[in-house]
């Protein structure tokens, strides 16, 4: 490895002259991005299989079992099928925006991973304003949905886009407010510091217990933010077919699908980081590692699937009521409670 690096430094570096530091840092970053995105794509692909299998088991069915052993190659087959399908453009669609829609949906879902700390050292950008970056980037996902819904020139698509925009903007508010308490107790916007602040002897020191109401608000808002069941009126198969993606086919549809499952993983990773102690080990005699992060995120993902198999779909006005009239007041009250708690002698975060 060192020999290769030396060779590159000798032969390639002079070509760029004074620009070499910038070029090399860009190359390194691209390599790291690939190292994050490639496993993420694999996780997304196998999440679709896990979803179908787990739902099937909960319904006492078998689930996909034809492609490969135990149906393990099913996501690959689905991917190949979607790649080979024709992308259909509706006649009166706005071509440019119709293509831009799915791209705008997937780009923020992938960009947000830049600041997620997978373990103590494994983080692409360990920036000070990590939480702000996450909030800003995840608030962009709604553009893909709106643009796609409008550009398709279809009533169903447009209705889906309207629902999505209202829902995602509303639940961002309660998610952001739930995070304020996390910031208060950790005193930092840096994700590594937030994880480090939760360190203790056991998993009772993680934020989920002292901030339990916020943990629940955050998790439920996360489900609503990703438009998963029981908050999936955006797609609402029985009313508006598939919402904003009804006109999409082939790979352009697949991008929406990837974005949705990528966002599920992202919410799981964020919940893990903020409330479940990130990469920290649950008991002090086991070492901290990336595996804990993965296990915790997978547990949250399992909750997503469990919710889907359990709850019937909310009505749209009930979704709005839950966000604005239940979660936001709870958050405001709990911010005050945590503030007073931190000022009182019972303060456990010092």
């Amino acid at each position, binding site marked *: 490895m060192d020999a290769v690096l030396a060779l590159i430094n000798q032969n390639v570096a002079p070509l760029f002259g004074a620009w070499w530091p910038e070029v090399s840092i860009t190359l390194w970053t691209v390599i790291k991005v690939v190292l994050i995105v490639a496993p993420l794509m694999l996780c997304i692909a196998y999440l679709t299989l896990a979803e179908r299998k787990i739902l099937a088991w909960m319904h006492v069915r078998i689930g996909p079992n034809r492609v490969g052993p135990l149906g393990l190659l099913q996501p690959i087959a689905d991917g190949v099928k979607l790649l080979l399908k024709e992308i259909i453009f509706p006649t009166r669609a706005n071509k440019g*925006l119709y293509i831009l829609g799915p791209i705008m949906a997937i780009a923020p879902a992938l960009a947000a991973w830049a600041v997620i700390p997978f373990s103590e050292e494994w983080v692409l950008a360990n920036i000070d304003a990590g939480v702000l970056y996450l909030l800003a980037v995840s608030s*962009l996902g709604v553009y893909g949905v709106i643009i796609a819904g409008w550009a398709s020139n279809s009533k169903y698509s447009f209705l889906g886009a309207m629902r999505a925009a209202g829902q995602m903007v509303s639940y961002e508010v309660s998610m952001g407010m739930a995070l304020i308490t996390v910031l208060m107790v950790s005193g930092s916007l840096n994700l590594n510091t937030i994880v480090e602040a939760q360190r203790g002897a056991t998993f009772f020191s993680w934020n989920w217990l002292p901030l339990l109401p916020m943990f629940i608000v955050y998790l439920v808002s996360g489900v609503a933010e990703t438009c998963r069941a029981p908050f999936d009126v955006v797609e609402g198969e029985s009313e508006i077919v598939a919402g904003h993606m009804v006109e999409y086919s082939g790979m352009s549809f697949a991008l929406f699908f990837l974005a949705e499952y990528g966002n599920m993983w992202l919410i799981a990773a964020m919940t893990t980081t903020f409330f479940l102690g990130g990469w920290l080990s649950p008991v002090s005699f086991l070492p901290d590692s990336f595996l804990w992060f993965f296990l915790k995120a997978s547990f949250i993902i399992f909750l997503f699937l469990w919710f889907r198999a359990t709850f019937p779909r909310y009505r749209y006005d009930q979704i709005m009521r839950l966000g604005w009239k239940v979660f936001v007041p709870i958050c405001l009250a709990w911010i005050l409670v945590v503030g007073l708690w931190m000022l009182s002698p019972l303060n456990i975060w010092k």
Partner: protein
Amino acid sequence: MTMDFPTVLFYVFASILVLSALRVITARNPVHAVLFLVLSFFNAAGLWMLLHAEFLAIMLVMVYVGAVMVLFLFVVMMLDINIERLRQGFWSYLPVGAVIGLIMAGEMALILGGRYFGLEALPAPAVPAADYSNTKELGRLLFTDYVYPFELASVILLVALIAAVLLTLRQRKDNKAMNPSLQVRVKAADRWRIVKMDAVVEAPATPAADAQEGGKA
């Protein structure tokens, strides 16, 4: 090639910013105009990031791009705008518009030129130390030195919010909207009850009656 990397980035951001801002006012389709406005916000955020003002940059993306422009786009998409009618009378309005534009440009030139914002008046700030946090510094200033204007601004915003709600609030007599908070309080017992009843056993029909009926048919 004497420019350093941040300078190159500055020119990239600035040129895209100016071009997209130009497209905001020249785009024929209002939805395109709004999307170009989003693009220009992004590039302005990039410029702020170059100035080490990461809090302002991220807030610009979060508040304006993530929330305000989404609602803007929402409204523009709902409107049925006739572009031809909007363009009517363009030439008759042009002189007034041009005069106003020139006055604005002149005023900006007066302020931004040389004396107040030139390089002599405002030299480039020192590059902050590595552990400098723009967010922390802004937060400290907002809640110490500027706490009074800050709270005043938030109260004014709250008043505007309530006023906007009040202006659009109409309570019609024939409104059939449902109240979800009442609905979720409904218990199963309000809707149906289980009644204990003795089983009713129907006496089996006698063959004789059957035969009689058959005879009638």
